[in-house]
């Protein structure tokens, strides 16, 4: 095959520091697979990268329509990358709908590769287009490569035993091959993946490999491009061993590792919900790690089974998204009352109600902190990137066990499905924090609601002789845990539970400030806005602006020392994907600070440029 004769060697090879590609097609076109394969290959080449999959909630929206467009954006480079990029440099559009929905995002002068095989009258009609965007001027100002991929794939796969429908389903690999050629990437990783994926149908593996090779060769022999590009490996990343990771994957691994560090069996109770289902699926593959996964009949049963397992001595875990959080509220209150370790993972999505199941949002913050009946304090922590999910998951387990408390871990759709290189922790840096069970009756007798230095109660699991005791949702007497309705005891217990959770502040670090510790504006972020904020601050620093940022992992209780840090800036800017929920919390906690909310609720992450503009407009005032 032509790969061996060093394809494209006659064409000039240009170095690029970074590139943003968006693959867009119908939701049946396999764009997510294409994007993930490109990402995976780039990660193994040592590029830093970030991805942003964006797809419809429908499994197959009507083919060829605008709502059916599925996109995958990947930014890869030889320098440190924090976000998937504001605007693509390259758009791959597999049909008219994909072109028209995405073209407005493409950089001026950017490259657009269009599959003309999918531009018939009826295709245009499905995309609700009166005129053909290839000829009506829509694409002026862009570099356009027109390619009949439908036909090319048919030609490349002539003689295969596949039906013509199956042949056409290889289009995405033709496209992938072409992009591999353009950016000088090897095909081997994807070849191997195809062999594994279609182990039971080798003819499909073969066809997709042929299509990919044909796409690769097309770049070489058909003079579509003036040159090829190369993006060198990123040497700015800290030294270490890396692997490409997606958020839900990292949460899953982190929770299993956390349970091992706490010396506990992990029990997940979960009910499938987008975009959290991946955690249930992933953890179900860890049976050899002793992980029990229970797909419950509903969200409530999921958390209740997890809580039951915690009573029995497991680390209880439940994973869900916003609507499921709402359903679990009462059981969370029970977990607060019985004081057992339970991790509740909320992969936030657009709401209210069913909302935008596949789009991202950060609007469950107040629900997480306050969304239960009565005084039911639960600590809340938030992951800021796919790789960060690993660390945050371990931290959630630490807090849950050390304080005998339910804890909410917030992630979101953007982190869950996004990918980035994960610098693997050294095993010796993962320090165990075993949680001992009470083994027998302590001196002076067993008191189920006695407290340790962290105000945590003892964990006495069923099966231990002498520690038979009852727990439940009724108010209990201090120390004995017996039912108690006395007014003073109730207030004492309400305050006890509150103090325990607020006391977590003593074991969490004050976050670092990125940039100078004094200045005009401090951008305070939490969750998945971190990448965009960091990029914006870097850009603003380059322009000499006195702007810094601080990112919150522990969103409730808030870490100590924030008041001092905030006091060194004229104003605090809080960008978040909701109507200003964290800003509201900060205003109530730090009423003397000038807190400015910067909301965005479009189901999309912040762009770096939006943050830069916002800061510049504030500085200009």
């Amino acid at each position, binding site marked *: 095959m032509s790969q061996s004769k060093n394809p494209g060697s006659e064409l000039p090879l240009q170095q690029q520091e970074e590139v943003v590609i968006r693959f867009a097609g119908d939701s049946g076109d396999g764009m997510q697979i294409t994007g993930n394969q490109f990402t995976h290959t780039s990660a193994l080449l040592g590029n830093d990268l970030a991805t942003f999959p964006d797809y419809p909630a429908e499994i197959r929206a009507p083919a060829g329509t605008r709502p059916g467009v599925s996109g995958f954006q990947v930014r890869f480079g030889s320098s440190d990358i924090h976000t998937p990029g504001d605007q693509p440099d390259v758009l791959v559009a597999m049909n008219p709908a994909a072109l028209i929905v995405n073209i407005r995002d493409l950089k001026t002068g950017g490259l657009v590769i269009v599959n003309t095989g999918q531009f018939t009258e009826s295709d245009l009609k499905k995309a609700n287009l009166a005129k053909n965007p290839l000829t009506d001027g829509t694409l002026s100002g862009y570099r356009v490569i027109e390619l009949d991929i439908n036909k090319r794939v048919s030609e490349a796969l002539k003689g295969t035993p596949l039906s013509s429908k199956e042949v056409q389903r290889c289009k995405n690999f033709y496209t992938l091959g072409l992009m591999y050629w353009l950016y000088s990437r090897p095909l081997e990783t994807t070849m191997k993946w195809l062999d594994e994926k279609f182990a039971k149908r080798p003819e499909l593996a073969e066809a997709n490999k042929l299509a990919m090779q044909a796409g690769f060769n097309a770049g070489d022999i058909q003079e579509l491009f003036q040159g090829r590009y190369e993006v060198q490996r*990123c040497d700015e990343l800290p030294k270490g061993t890396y692997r490409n990771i997606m958020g839900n994957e990292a949460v899953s691994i982190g929770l299993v590792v956390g349970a091992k560090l706490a010396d506990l069996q992990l029990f997940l109770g979960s009910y499938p919900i987008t975009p959290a289902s991946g955690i249930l699926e992933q953890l179900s593959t860890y049976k050899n790690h*002793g992980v029990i996964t229970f797909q419950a009949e509903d969200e409530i049963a999921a958390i209740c089974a997890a809580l039951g397992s915690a009573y029995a001595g497991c680390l209880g875990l439940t994973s869900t998204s916003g609507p499921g959080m709402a359903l679990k509220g009462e059981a969370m209150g029970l977990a607060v009352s019985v004081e057992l370790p339970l991790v509740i993972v909320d992969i936030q999505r657009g709401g209210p109600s069913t909302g935008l199941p596949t789009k991202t949002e950060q609007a469950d913050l107040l629900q997480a902190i306050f969304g239960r009946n009565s005084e039911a304090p639960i600590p809340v922590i938030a992951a800021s990137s796919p790789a960060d999910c690993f660390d945050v998951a371990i931290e959630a387990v630490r807090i849950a066990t050390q304080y005998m408390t339910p804890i909410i871990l917030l992630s979101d759709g953007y982190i869950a499905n996004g990918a980035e290189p994960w610098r693997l922790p050294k095993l010796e840096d993962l320090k165990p924090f075993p949680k001992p069970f009470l083994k027998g009756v302590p001196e002076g007798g067993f008191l189920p609601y006695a407290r340790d230095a962290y105000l945590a109660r003892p964990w006495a699991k069923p099966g231990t002789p002498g520690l038979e005791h009852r727990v439940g949702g009724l108010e209990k007497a201090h120390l004995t845990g017996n039912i108690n309705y006395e007014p003073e005891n109730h207030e004492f217990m309400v305050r006890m539970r509150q103090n325990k959770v607020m006391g977590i502040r003593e074991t969490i670090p004050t976050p670092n400030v990125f940039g100078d510790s004094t200045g005009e504006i401090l951008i305070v972020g939490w969750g998945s806005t971190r990448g965009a904020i960091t990029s914006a601050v870097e850009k603003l620093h380059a322009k000499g602006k006195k702007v810094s940022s601080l990112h919150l992992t522990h969103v409730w209780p808030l870490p100590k020392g924030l008041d001092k840090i905030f006091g060194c800036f004229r104003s605090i800017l809080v960008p978040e994907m909701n109507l200003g929920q964290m800003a509201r919390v900060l205003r109530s906690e730090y009423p003397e600070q000038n807190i400015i909310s910067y909301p965005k609720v479009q189901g999309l992450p912040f762009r770096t440029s939006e943050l830069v503009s916002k800061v510049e407009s504030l500085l200009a005032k």
Partner: protein
Amino acid sequence: MAEAQAPLTKKDFKSDQEVRWCPGCGDYAILNSVQGIMASLGVPRHQICFVSGIGCSSRFPYYMNTYGFHSIHGRAPAIATGIKTANPELSVWLVTGDGDGLSIGGNHMAHILRRNVDIKVLLFNNEIYGLTKGQYSPTSPVGLKTKSTPMGSVDRPFDPISFALGCGATFVARTIDSHLKHMEQTLLAAAHHKGTAFVEIYQNCVIFNDGAFQGFSDKAVRDDKTIDLQPGKPMVFGKDGSKGIQIEGWEPKVVVAAEAATWKSDTHSPGPAFVMSQLDLDPAMPRPIGIFRDVKAPVFEEAVHEQLRAAKAKRGAGTIKDLVYTGETWTV
């Protein structure tokens, strides 16, 4: 351990908590029976866990000197499933009521029954909401006047036995709070069943629905108005044992004792049990109690742990290194 040496008595299972049900409540008799059979089971107290939801019956765990979890309304089956799956060694008992178990928690009840988790479910059916002070329940008969149905209930009720059978329960039985001997026999049979054992206990609420079961549960009429389904025995009833039940086709009918059919609780299909459970609708027929169904089936938590064992045997016990340093990696 001391407990393993000395045989336990009923007294060992009484907790130090004051029992707070209304005087005359059927729950007292049930508590007494359960404490009694516990002593005979030979399971140490620390291996026993009682789980409940919300309602009068759900206070039960507080009165048992074992492990216990009084949870939230309707969710006890889910909590209990978590406990039993986490530690299959425990003897787990679930106490619920007609509102807790069949209304707010009907979904969870259906699913624990189909999964066949090895848990004993005691459903106290008083056909009324007691703890919220007298509204109709999903087992109240049509026409029942309650605080929320001043003109009589128009809801068609559940038959708990039919419900359990429909969910694929592997053990389904019914007893009566005032029929102590029968209750103890039934509870013991449930205790010895491997899998979810569903026991409906007719329980009289003296305050809000007094006498709901009087028509067949009173000692004076009980023998004539109930039929005790005993596996392998003829379906005979009546004070002098002169009457019997014969099932012809789908229609049970009263016959002389000599013509009574033999009751089978382990038929391939739960059909006969279902037919018998529907006798409730016919006031002319005796009310069936006893063991409707008792069959063997795979137990949920055993299958779960078997998969863990199989995965470990095949892939080896997983380590942190396996989790983190896996897939394709590269070094900077």
